[in-house]
């Protein structure tokens, strides 16, 4: 196994309520790399993202996940977040009564501790929100409550910017965004690319990859990676769909190339 990997997913098997959904996923992300996972609905992409973040309903039955060489097994989601793993949700959950401002302050304090002086936190939030076109009135609204799909995705992107993760898993952050919003959000994601950070970008479509260039593209089918390649693979998928892979590569098993 590569020792220079920032984020290692090793032969990951995950069950949900007794049913195996992930059937051996292996993936290594080196510092500075962006990996994209593409696949059909129901292929297990979101299960992967939840399992990585430590959702208690997603049982890891085999394999392991390492961040910076440290095994995440047994760590609660908040502990994973404090180790700077971030998940942008496909469907961000509404939390009525908890304002966006209160939530952002609490999460920044929890993840970044004293890194930012308290008096600077608000300034930082305002500046990042402005860059994403999020109006100030958002801050007093209940978290994700009554938000449009696009508003939720902008807010997920804002959180990623504010929490400065080492590894960010973005689960269909492009869905629900119109073309202009997609560009703005993608640019904010792309600008976070750094030699210390890794990004795992889950998407249905090639369009986000026009802005956030992946180093590797992986095709996900039936709970496993069936093919990996460079950025061109996404273009090929856009043209040809997934059927040709299902037939040709179904027997590849878990041996994803990274």
């Amino acid at each position, binding site marked *: 196994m590569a020792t220079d990997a920032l984020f290692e997913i090793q032969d990951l098997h995950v069950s949900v309520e007794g049913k195996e959904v992930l059937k051996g996923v292996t993936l290594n992300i080196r510092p500075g790399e962006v990996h994209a996972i593409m696949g059909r609905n129901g292929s297990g992409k979101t299960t992967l993202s939840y399992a990585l*973040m430590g*959702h*208690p*309903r997603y049982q890891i039955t085999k394999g392991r996940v390492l961040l910076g060489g440290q095994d995440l097994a047994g760590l*609660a*989601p*908040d502990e*994973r*977040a*404090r180790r700077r793993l*971030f*998940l942008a*949700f496909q469907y*961000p*959950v*509404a*939390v*009525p*009564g*908890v*304002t966006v401002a*209160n*939530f952002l302050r*609490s*999460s920044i304090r*929890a*993840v970044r501790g004293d890194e930012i002086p308290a008096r600077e936190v608000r300034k930082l939030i305002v500046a990042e929100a402005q860059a994403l076109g999020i109006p100030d009135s958002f801050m007093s609204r*209940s978290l994700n409550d009554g938000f449009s799909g696009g508003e939720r995705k902008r807010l997920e992107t804002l*959180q990623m910017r504010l*929490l400065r993760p080492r590894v960010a898993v973005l689960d269909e952050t492009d869905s629900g965004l119109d073309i202009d919003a997609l560009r703005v959000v993608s640019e904010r994601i792309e600008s976070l690319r750094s030699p210390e950070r890794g990004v795992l970008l889950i998407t249905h479509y090639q369009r986000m990859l026009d802005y956030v260039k992946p180093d590797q593209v992986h095709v996900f089918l039936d709970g496993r990676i069936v093919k990996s390649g460079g950025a061109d693979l996404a273009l090929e998928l856009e043209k040809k769909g997934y059927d040709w892979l299902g037939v040709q590569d179904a027997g590849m098993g878990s041996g994803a190339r990274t």
Partner: protein
Amino acid sequence: MNSARPAWLESEQGRLKGVLSSLALPGRKEEGYRYTSLKDLQVGVAQAPAASGSIGPGEGAAWEALRAQGVYLADLLTAARERTDSLREALKLPRQLEKDPFAIAALANATAALFVQIPAGLKVDGVVSLKSLHPTGAEFPRLVILDVGAGAEVELIEEQMGEEQVAAGADGLACGLWLVRVGENAKARLSSVQYWGQNTRSFERRYLSAAKGAELRLLDAAFGGSQWQCRLETECLGEGARIEVKVAVRGSGAQRFDTWVSALHGVPRTSSSVEHWAAVGGRAKSTFNGNLVITPEGVQTDAFQKSRSLLLSREAEANAVPKLEIATDDVKCAHGASVSPVGDDQLFYLESRGIPRAEAERMIIDGFTEPVVSLLPTEGARERAMKAAASKRGDA
């Protein structure tokens, strides 16, 4: 005190006492009382109501400073002598409450009563802050009348205290009535926070009307007492009037909360919004009775009602009964209700942002009082309310 009571007031209150004695208390079959028991309750029978029950200044602007600005602030008897005509008008019960025994009891028997008048055009500097004290287990009828003149602006809060003063085991009955009329293009921001003693049964009645172009916002938070039924009757009287109501209750033990809100739109182009938040633990119970009424004249009404309840224990209970009576098609209305425990997915979402589970849970629960508490007009009021909410965490 009675010797100073003007004949007209004596006569009016006497008439109301007569009405009260002829009224039977509502039974559980009546719509507004389906979830509120009046068992063992006697209203208006106290011959010598507790004289020590009072409405006094809270921590906002000093009353003298308010008076110096032109605000009229006086007890009922003083106002009856000094502002006879306007008080007589203001004391009229709106038709919605004409047969409500608790409204009548408060009006007929008020031992503590305050008349607040804001002259037309006056933008009051500072918060009109009232503190009501219910120091014994006796019946405590109280009355707050607020008249806001055209174009005036005012912010008022009443905090109802009793928690420390009422001895355990001493039953009390608090009947409170607010009669609020906001004039044309005036703005009123009103708050009520209830901390009655643990054995107090409380029946609050509030009538809130907004004239043409007026804006009225009411925040109502309730933490105390064994039983609290708050009936809010709002009415938009002129075009462009807007009434916004936000209610939060936080229940524990065996408390009973019943929030009953009726919003009446009988003229064109008015709007209202009602938000109800309830978090109940222990064996506590919360009910929301929402009633939106739009008459045929109420075209282009924009109205919204939403009730959300959070159950913090298996024994806690919440009911939401939203009702709509809409007699015209040209309206925009939205309503909804939810009752649920703290959601696993909500916890996971907050945890995924580094917030430990216990803190995440606390944030979600506090989120059911914060939409009201965070808007209270004074820092002290916000702190007391947050403390009251926090004191109930052990009973989640």
